[in-house]
């Protein structure tokens, strides 16, 4: 109780005395906490949507029968249902959309009778009339729409809609809506349900089903022998959670990634707390000495200042909650879009406020603020009672302290390299993140020493150049290290993050551009309709293949792709015509080269994408095994290539070889190249597209190569939208830091500045002095920040990205972007000094006299 009263009397009174300083710090912390919390909540919402969707489709199944690379024969359903203790239900899913455009949605085909044991769903709205399940069974091309889809598309019960798929456009009747429970929660209600017969007739997928869900009377006893015999060796049986677990792991890794980036804002805010607590402690040394003299223990004093840090943290967190609630709505779309692009499709319709997430946010904010207050609190606790009698204050930071800090920082920096070599933990580069933090901390701790050196060298330099204000500013820089160092630390962190991200994004984009140009070559890409959306590449119509084969003005690179799983990780097996491909494009080699193309074409091995190699642990010389359509396939790995396709890695094999091994493999897609490059390729592509539409209707998806390449780069840019937001917020907090520090510096030196004014220093000179001081701070911060940023960019490119996403890229510095943006940051930072400059000349010399009089 006594401690609390002392805290109110000693610390809170100080806060009340200078509310704007405290407010600036609280605002900085609040911004950091808001961005940290809102990013996590936004990812949580995506994770929650994904999990609910997965649970809705998995239902109560114990096991799932699938055919990797194909579908399951539908007659197996009856055979499995004839086995005692086994309940079997087929499921088919596809993405479709309304003819004429609109967003795609998930169409689920089930047998409503068998499915009762697996999944529950309910028709929304009033009961009455024929049961919904009976209606969709009895009437061809009827569907029940999920609530969200019906609302979004404006579908009413009894209305007609035209849906499009690879077999063409088909009119459907909407017989009702499904409430957003159970199966209706799938894709957050952006789904529709139809009978399995309708599904097959609509999609043209006859005789087979996507999968068969099994419910076992004794799940712990495993699959009954009779069921295993019926399923046979060519099909795969496994628990339904593998897709879910894989997706959740990827989203969580992404969450850690974003959490780290957003934590940087909180980290920058930490400097603000440090600076204010340190300033309060330093400014009140005499009062502290009195406190100590009247019996306060060093421990009590220590906790008073740690408590002050906690108070800023708590206030910042309280302000962060409303700020975060505004921010999260803006982040949500970007986060879910990025997750959908990179990992798994999610449809987020609601935010879930998790108690533990809020608690984490509170704990992180308060702990960070308390940690920031530790060092000043220790210093305050060490103030001896005898200082009451001392007339002169001790220097803020002695030479040994500066050196000690510098050595500590250096030691931290030395740890960065070994940490960067450590592997990820469950796909999360924890050591890499720690290395990044050490990098930030190391440079921040080096800042005082660097400032001292800068001040020491700038001071004489500015004198000889006869720059009065600059000379004075350099002197201040040299003499008042600790607090300025804090502002520099904040700036270093923000500039480092900026520099690193500029380098990383530029390197990444440049690499992707090269990859797109080399590997995604082609004038027209043709697949079956909705193939890319569904990630299921059905055979192209044989007539199309014949027609194209007869044309003499084109070359073709056919392929067939399969979405598969390898040791729990999703990947694509792409069978391609290597011979045809090498004429028009080339791989982006990491290991190997074009000399591998002939053996690849002969089927003597496969190529792995970097992402797949990283996830599978396979490398050149290893053997890649996969089970596809009941065939055990194995190839030696001949080379590694860069590939930036999302949703997992890629394995490239020979189309002809796979055709031989599987005994018949139709083309799933084809790239078309016009042989005469002198003609107007764009016009020729458009003409060919028109011809194919006339001949094959709406069954194909065709995309000109130029449009596809632009689309890839657009998606790339979109995935970095969130990063940019986080970066801007970190810079904003840093700017706030500069404003606070300079303002405090001005307030501290009110008497001094007014003395200069009284001695004839003009307002302009005083302004210039403050501006120079700001310039020196910013310059040192920016130089160190850029250096730190280069280190950080290395960590991001070669550690964080490699361990989180599996890909690396060609390291390249966008000097032009840095040359433009770094001066802009200087300008912005100088702008942040404006309030301090205004404040410096606001006080009249009369105030000086009053101050001395006191």
């Amino acid at each position, binding site marked *: 109780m006594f401690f609390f009263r002392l805290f109110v009397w000693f610390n809170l009174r100080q806060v009340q005395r200078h509310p704007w300083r405290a407010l600036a710090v609280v605002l900085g912390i609040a911004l950091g906490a808001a961005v940290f919390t809102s990013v996590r909540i936004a990812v949580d919402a995506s994770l929650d949507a994904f999990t609910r969707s997965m649970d809705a489709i998995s239902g109560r199944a114990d096991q799932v029968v699938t055919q990797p690379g194909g579908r399951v024969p539908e*007659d197996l359903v*009856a055979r499995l249902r004839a086995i*005692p203790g086994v309940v079997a239900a087929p499921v088919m899913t596809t993405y479709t959309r309304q003819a004429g455009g609109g967003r795609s949605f998930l169409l689920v085909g089930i047998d409503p009778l068998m499915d009762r044991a697996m999944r529950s769903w309910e028709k929304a709205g009033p009961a009455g009339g024929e049961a919904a399940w009976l209606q969709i*069974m009895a009437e061809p091309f009827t569907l029940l729409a999920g609530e969200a889809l019906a609302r979004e598309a404006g579908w009413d019960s009894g209305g007609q809609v035209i849906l499009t798929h690879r077999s063409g456009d088909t009119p459907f009747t909407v017989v009702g809506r499904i409430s957003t429970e159970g199966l209706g929660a799938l894709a957050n209600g952006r789904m529709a349900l139809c*009978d399995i017969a309708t599904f097959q007739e609509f999609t043209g997928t006859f005789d087979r089903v996507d999968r068969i869900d099994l419910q076992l009377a004794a799940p712990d006893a495993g699959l009954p022998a009779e069921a295993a015999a019926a399923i046979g060796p060519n099909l795969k049986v496994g628990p339904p959670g593998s897709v879910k677990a894989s997706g959740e792991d990827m989203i969580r890794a992404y969450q850690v990634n974003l959490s780290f980036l957003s934590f940087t804002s909180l980290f920058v805010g930490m400097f603000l707390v440090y600076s204010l607590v340190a300033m309060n402690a330093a400014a009140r040394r005499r009062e502290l000495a009195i406190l100590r003299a009247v019996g306060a223990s060093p421990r009590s004093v220590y906790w008073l200042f740690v408590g002050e840090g906690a108070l800023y943290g708590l206030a910042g967190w309280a302000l962060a909650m409303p700020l975060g609630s505004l921010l999260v709505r803006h982040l949500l779309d970007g986060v879910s879009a990025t997750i959908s692009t990179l990992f798994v499709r999610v449809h987020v319709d609601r935010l879930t406020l998790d108690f533990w997430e809020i608690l984490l946010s509170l704990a992180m904010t308060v702990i960070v603020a308390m940690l920031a207050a530790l060092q000043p609190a220790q210093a305050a606790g060490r103030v001896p009672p005898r200082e009451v009698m001392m007339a002169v204050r001790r220097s803020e930071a002695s030479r040994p302290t500066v050196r000690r800090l510098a050595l500590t920082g250096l030691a931290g920096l030395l740890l960065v390299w070994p940490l960067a070599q450590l592997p990820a933990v469950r796909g999360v580069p924890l050591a890499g993140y720690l290395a990044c933090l050490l990098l930030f901390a190391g440079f921040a701790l080096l800042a005082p020493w660097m400032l001292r050196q800068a001040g020491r060298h700038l001071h004489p330099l500015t004198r000889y150049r006869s720059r009065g204000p600059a000379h004075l500013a350099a002197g201040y820089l040299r003499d008042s290290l600790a607090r300025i160092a804090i502002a520099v630390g904040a700036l270093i962190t923000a500039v480092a993050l900026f520099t690193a991200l500029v380098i990383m994004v530029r390197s990444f984009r440049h690499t992707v551009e090269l990859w797109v140009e080399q590997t995604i070559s082609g004038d027209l890409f043709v697949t079956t309709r909705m193939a890319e959306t569904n990630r299921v590449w059905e055979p192209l119509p044989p007539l199309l293949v014949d027609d194209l084969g007869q044309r003499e003005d084109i070359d073709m690179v056919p392929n067939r792709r399969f979405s598969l799983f390898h040791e729990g990780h999703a990947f694509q097996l792409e069978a391609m015509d290597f011979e045809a491909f090498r004429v028009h494009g080339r791989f982006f080699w990491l290991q190997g080269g074009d000399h591998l193309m002939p053996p690849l074409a002969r089927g003597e091995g496969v190529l792995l994408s970097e992402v797949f190699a990283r996830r599978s642990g396979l490398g050149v010389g290893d053997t890649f095994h996969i089970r596809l359509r009941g065939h055990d396939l194995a190839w030696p790995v001949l080379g590694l290539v860069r590939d930036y396709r999302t949703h997992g890695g890629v394995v490239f094999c020979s189309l002809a070889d796979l055709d031989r091994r599987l005994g018949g493999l139709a083309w799933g897609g084809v790239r078309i190249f016009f042989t005469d490059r002198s003609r107007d390729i764009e016009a020729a592509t458009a003409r060919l597209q028109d011809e194919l539409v006339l001949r094959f209707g709406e069954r194909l998806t065709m995309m000109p190569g130029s449009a596809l390449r632009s689309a890839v780069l657009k998606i790339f840019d979109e995935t970095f939208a969130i990063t940019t937001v986080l970066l801007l917020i970190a810079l904003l907090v840093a700017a706030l830091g500069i404003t606070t520090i300079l303002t405090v510096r001005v307030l501290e030196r009110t008497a001094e500045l007014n003395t200069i004014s009284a001695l004839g220093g003009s307002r302009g000179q005083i302004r210039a002095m403050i501006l120079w001081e700001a310039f020196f701070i910013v310059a040192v911060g920016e130089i160190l920040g850029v250096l730190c940023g280069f280190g950080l960019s290395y960590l991001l490119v070669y550690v964080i990205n490699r361990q989180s996403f599996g890909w690396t890229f060609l390291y390249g510095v966008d000097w032009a972007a840095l040359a433009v943006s770094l001066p802009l940051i200087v300008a912005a930072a100088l702008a942040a000094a404006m309030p301090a400059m205004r404040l410096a000349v606001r006080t009249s010399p009369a105030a000086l006299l009053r101050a001395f009089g006191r």
Partner: protein
Amino acid sequence: MKRCRRIGGLWVLGLIFVAAAAGGVLGDDTAGYRRVTGPCHFEFPRDHGAHPGFRTEWWYYTGNLEAPDGARFGFQLTFFRRQLRPSSARADWPRRPSAWRTNQLFLAHAALTDIDGNRHYAAEEMSRGALGLAGVERQGDAVRVYLGQWDTVIGPTAHVLHMAGEDFGFDLRLAPVKAAVAHGDGGYSRKGTDPERASCYYSFTRLKTDGSVRLHGRRLAVSGTSWMDHEYSTAPLEPGIRGWSWFSLQLDNGTELMLFLLNMEAGGYHPASSGTLVAADGKTTAVAFESIRAEVLRRWTSPSSDAEYPLAWRLQLEGTDLDLTIRTPVDDQEMETGMTTGVTYWEGSITADGSSGGQPVKGRGYMELTGSNQAMDERL
């Protein structure tokens, strides 16, 4: 308060005891279906099979069995066929229909009553009539009706039943002691005021039964006597009728009695209520409504559904000197079919004792009580 069960809905049992003879009075939802308009001219084995075009059909087995150690059991196995749309609806099917596309739905209810253990076990199945999941097929001289693992093969000399559920199952061979009996006028069995409310209905009233039952993993050899009904129709239940009480009795004097009473919502029985008395030599006598005297002696309320069932009866048939008291050895033989029809009804083993022609007579049989919990013309 009575619980209202609408999980699945009723459209099977509610349609069974009905018939049709002329168009225009059955409602729009029966338009396009075949209708029962007169004598059915049964021809076997053809008519053991399915009758597509009629909306509803069922194959119904009940019986009382005894194990060598004296353990007594009652059993029920019923297959229902339901046509979803009139046959003409096929014209709207896609040019290449999916193998899952069908107009026929099959349901099955099974039950085993452990009389000495005073327990009733029930199971149900439902499936579309496609892809070998359920259906009716000719196998030479025999007809097989099946749904998943359950089936009956109706052969020239016996009906072979197989049912395998989680708690219980049975494999039984039922040999007809008497030929099939056509009820009503050559099988044309009226179920309402209008002549078009009718069904085609025949029974095997006495089937000598041998085989085994399985209960909680224990298999027992059993023998006894069973009953089989086969009936098809299109017409829904007549408005004002809320259910029925149906009796099948095998008496120890070699005779059998089938009797159904259509319960009116307003109270009393509908005049279409009737029955068939089968003499020991197989001769049949129609039991007219006017000759039936039925008195409920005891009612029982289900603790599960709150439905009240009349479980003890006195039945008298004027002109035949038949006077029977009907009782059940197990009260709770209620069927709750939430996964299929959604109907809650009572179907169970009964005993009869009384007199026939002045001679004491005993017997066993089955009783079905519907509409106690909800009106039987409720639909999905």
